[in-house]
């Protein structure tokens, strides 16, 4: 039985590795312009090896692949990985199998923060051309204008975490329903505040902000990919470092305490880390729900008894890349915001979990 389990795990890892290698080529071939996977391979090979002699692919193909599709795929992967990580950590540290950045109100808090910053930028501090330059990635990623949105989102996300904790009272035994309801209430509150801000802001800002509420990778560019990649990679490393402590929390606060874990400190740090991941992703690609809920659950179903952090991140990333492909291709001449698709799949999944919970 043990051998069979080990075999299943190895198979899973092998399939995942294969998917990770081929996904960028396949996923980049989908879209409005018809480019085959082999064209993409050649384009990548030429670009990476700088071999101008074998000029297989046209300049326009190269530009589509490198300036539009690849940054989009990288951003989708990073966002999916980040959300899956945040969901997995949230579920463990709150011992709540239904925890998710979206259901917990963190996403709506982050959206509110981002919207506040955005409307202030549009209404006051910048000229419209500055804002266009900003959203088109013509400003370097570390410039203060580009960091304002994530910072605003992080402040909003942290506020929502504090609110959920105050409302649900973590000191008591894990009250899953109570925490979930607190998350929903927080989500509504920040949603209402966001609507209020939009009501009093210009139509231009309102149109731009619709982007956040739906979630999309359409505006992905290389400059915009850097910050999320750094934040998600660093978070992954931190989570790996604290793997033992996080998993000790699963056995209850008292047991974790007897194993030498500073429970309150660890939980607060991990909640803030999840807020940071969510905030940066919301600021970059909007509120994408249910990925953090679904992926850790699927991993638990597929690989029971293991908590593979890196695999969770990779599966989250691949899932998002392919959901984005669906978003690009499901309607002709128009793409669907990716948040709509994840919410549609996620809500069905949510009902499935509720039905099967012991």
């Amino acid at each position, binding site marked *: 039985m043990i051998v069979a389990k080990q075999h299943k795990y190895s198979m899973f890892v092998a399939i995942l590795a294969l998917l990770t290698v081929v996904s960028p080529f396949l996923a980049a071939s989908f879209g409005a312009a018809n480019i085959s996977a082999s064209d993409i391979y050649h384009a990548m090979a030429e670009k990476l090896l700088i071999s101008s002699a074998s000029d297989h692919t046209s300049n326009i193909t190269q530009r589509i692949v490198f300036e539009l599709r690849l940054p989009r795929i990288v951003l989708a992967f990073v966002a999916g990985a980040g959300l899956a990580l945040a969901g997995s950590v949230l579920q463990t540290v709150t*011992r709540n199998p239904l925890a998710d950045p979206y259901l917990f109100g963190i996403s709506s808090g982050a959206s509110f923060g981002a919207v506040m910053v955005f409307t202030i930028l549009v209404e006051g501090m910048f000229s419209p051309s500055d804002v266009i330059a900003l959203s088109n990635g013509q400003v370097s990623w570390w410039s203060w204008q580009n960091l304002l949105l994530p910072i605003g989102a992080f402040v909003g996300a942290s506020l929502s975490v504090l609110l959920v904790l105050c409302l649900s009272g973590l000191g008591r035994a894990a009250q899953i329903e109570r925490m979930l309801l607190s998350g929903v209430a927080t989500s509504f509150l920040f949603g209402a505040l966001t609507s209020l801000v939009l009501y009093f802001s210009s139509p231009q800002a309102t149109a731009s902000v619709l982007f956040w509420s739906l979630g999309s990778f359409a505006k992905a560019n290389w400059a915009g990919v850097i910050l999320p990649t750094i934040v998600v990679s660093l978070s992954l490393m931190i989570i790996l470092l604290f793997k033992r402590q996080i998993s000790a929390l699963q*056995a209850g606060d*008292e047991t974790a305490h*007897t*194993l*030498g*874990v500073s429970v309150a400190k660890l939980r607060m740090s991990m909640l803030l880390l999840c807020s940071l991941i969510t905030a940066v992703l919301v600021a970059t690609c909007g509120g994408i729900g249910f990925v953090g809920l679904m992926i850790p659950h699927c991993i638990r179903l597929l690989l029971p*008894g293991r*908590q593979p952090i890196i695999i969770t991140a990779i599966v989250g990333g691949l899932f998002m890349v392919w959901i984005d492909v669906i978003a690009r291709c499901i309607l002709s001449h128009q793409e669907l915001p990716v948040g709509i698709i994840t919410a549609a799949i996620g809500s069905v999944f949510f009902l499935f979990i509720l039905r099967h919970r012991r």
Partner: protein
Amino acid sequence: MTDTTTQPLALSVSQLSWTHDDCAILKNIQFDLPAKQMLGVIGPNGAGKSSLLRCLYRFILPSSGHISLFGQNIAQYSARQLATKIAVVQQDTPQFFEMNTRQLVAMGLTPHKGLLDSTTSKDNQLIDDAILQVGLATKAELQYSQLSGGEKQRALIARAIVQQPQLLILDEPTNHLDIHYQIQILQLVKSLGITVIASIHDLNLASAMCDNLVLLNQGELIANGSPSEVLTEDQISTVFKVCCEIEPHRQHGNPLISYFYHDANQIIVGH
């Protein structure tokens, strides 16, 4: 009975009180425990047994008093240091996500590992040995939730063994177990050769297994000493409100308690 002067003190509790929501749960508790001894904490429901144990492993902070562990004030230990000295076995571990027996036992490594330390082959050996020692070798890959009550308890003890403590605290380790497992668990714990504190409901079991007993009632320490000093007819009838007769056990010589029942009919209907 046991010579307490040869061993240094593992634990010294003085004037320990804990008040919760204006209710005095522990009142002025005072006792010493020599190293390598097994101490039984006995008393009726709500006497403060679990609260006392929780103060000892610092899950709750006493309102006043002093606890010294191996000669050092318990407050001076860091969370990790304390976890390398004291391991705790609770009645059950809540399970939110699936975990197999081996993973549960491996959690005992947590206080010994820094952030960058990985699990070495020596650690794996330690885990395997602990699982073997508690007789769960064939169940190591089973989910913890699939184990029986006695097996779960043994898995938690294996986790405590991996934690390599100098003091093991068990909160009602024999609850919900049949007599076979009750004896097996306590003998297993005794065989570890470290200082043990266990809260135990069954007075005869406590008498047979423990070197010393602490008798609590309504948060106060009523008696502390060897089983024959603590388990007297007077003290048992005052604290537990039952009539009993005590004679030396034929095998180990410690008190053996026989209870009297007021109404024979009550026995027939199962009381």
